[in-house]
């Protein structure tokens, strides 16, 4: 099987700070999702990368929303591909950390 590698350019940082872009080379099998790639980064390269998801693959929890190449997507339903992919947190939600944003309805938050 040919070896596949996605180059993920990920916007990271905390609220108030200047965001930085970090690049990770992620080997993948055809069919892997972007969420698979982010999970692989955490397990093999950098466990501090903040992402949020619950259901892993079913697209049921709707938590893994982020911006891929300028488009809002679910990371679990986008496939990794060879070459450059640019990933950023949702632009219209308050940033929490890295790719995690405040997506809970206001009345379901601890600090309102």
């Amino acid at each position, binding site marked *: 099987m040919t070896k596949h590698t996605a180059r993920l350019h990920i916007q990271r940082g*905390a*609220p108030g700070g200047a965001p930085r872009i970090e690049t990770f080379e992620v080997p993948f*099998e*055809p*069919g*892997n*999702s972007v969420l698979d790639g982010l*999970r692989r980064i*955490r*397990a*093999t390269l950098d*466990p*501090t*990368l*903040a*992402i*949020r*998801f*619950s*259901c*892993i*693959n*079913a*697209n*049921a*929890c*709707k*938590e893994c929303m982020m911006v891929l190449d300028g488009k809002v997507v*679910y990371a*679990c*339903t*986008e*496939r990794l591909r060879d070459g450059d992919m640019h990933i950023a947190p949702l632009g219209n939600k308050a940033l*929490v*950390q*890295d790719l*995690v944003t*405040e*997506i*809970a309805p206001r*009345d*379901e*938050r*601890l*600090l309102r």
Partner: protein
Amino acid sequence: MIRLESDVLVIGAGGAGIYAAIAAARDGCQVHLIDRSLIGRGGATVMAQMTVAVALGEQCPDHWEYHLADTLKAGRGLCDPALAQLLCENAPLRIREMDAWKVGWARENGHLKQVHAPGHDRARCVYVDFLNTGPAVSRTLRTQLNRVNAIRRIGDVLITDIVVHDGEAVGAVGLHLVSGKTVALEAKSVIIATGGLTRLYRRNSGSQNMGGDGYALALRAGAELIDMEFVQFFPIGHLAPRMIGMDPIMWDPFRYKLGGRLLNAKGEEFAERYGQAESGQYVLTRDVATYAIFKEVEAGRGSPAGGAYLSFAHVPEAELRKAFGPVIDRLAKNGIDLTKMPVEVAPIAHYHMGGVRVNASMETRVPNLFAAGEAVGGANGANRLSGNALTEAFVFGEHAGTAAAARAKSRGASGWNAKAAAAELDFLSGPGSAAAAPNTAALVMELQALMADNVGPFRTEAKLRLALLRLAQMQRELGALPAGGSAHYNMVRLDWLDLRNMLLVAQTVVLAAIERKESRGAHQREDYPGMLPEWELNQVLSYREGKLGLSRSPAKPIARAAK
């Protein structure tokens, strides 16, 4: 530190937790409903694909005692009959209540449609099309929940310990993931509704949030766990080709409606070799199917990815489309055309029969501490019947909510004690470990591989011992103080806290599995084949001063013969 106060604290906002919160509020209590993720989205409920078992008698005559008889039979002699009866007897009330709340159960010819699932003696399972039971149930419960002012819903809070004072539960403490701040939640009664432990396994059909949190909370609080060795594997979890945006247990509904053929690499139907012939109908129970697939793979007759083929190639396209409409398009997007190709399936960790030991009021042996839903052990014995999981979420949730509300009302105050909460709060807000942390995400994956390879559905003493040894090593590698800082959404600290629970809970599964020297239901010992009458007993785990203890308790006799 953020401090909150309520009458009833519900931990976990899936089907059981939401139902419990609604019931407690209905009885006049102020409720806090807490989830580590989003409310009503992060558990197993939202992922349910189809069946909900209930003796409604809409499709054909039925009675809850028939449902009970099937539940007890599936449980292989180990069910707690009182809990199993509660489940079956109250099921019609809850399912009708959900119907009145407009969940949208499938209907046909003016009645609710019920399908015949394996292990049931008749058509008994309601559902929502297409593959939509979980999302529909979650949406319906959230709608009801949002109408109740007495319930405060709070997401992104990870509960890390129950606070116990003078032997009684008085609340809980945890971490607000978004801010990194600690939280103290004072309550007159507490309900654990955190689901099961599927996350302990590499391939699982649950969510990231189900690493057995509630079991660890219960253990550390002084409560007992029961039947921990019984992990249900769903036999036909999707294996290949890689699909995205689909739940791995989605083939179950296909089998309910269309039968389908389970084939080995030679294209042969093989279930008959293991005692249950299929003949185009979906009758294989989960334990037998799991066994059959594993054995075919072992004999070198597995599919390329290491499972079995599931084929619908004999089903006309029009029929596929009639049964599953939009799902056929989602499959096409994944490059799957069922008229032309089979898919590959293999057993996948799906549900846990064991859990927190409770009495018929859903209360643990720690006063004021209750449990509900999959977190409860005992109702399903050694093997759960298809369709009983959502039913128990509703029934046990409602029951626990009612009981916890009664308890809260009988208590003047929570009896909160700052000293009892201090140790865990200091632990959470402290600087943590100064040592270089292991890669916590890698450690989670290693744990999942260890459990899948050595503590799966087929077990041997040697493999179980190996797992136990490695679990102890991993615990040492993890260290006694949390890794990561207290920053916003600190994933390393979150993993560390999860691993603390997952390693403890994994040990309870392995210990109980080593001890049970026979094969029963979901626990199959290759070195001890066959079910033995002397093992008609439940194993109970407890935790004291950092040590797990295991005891035996004779299975409760079935008090009344089912109809």
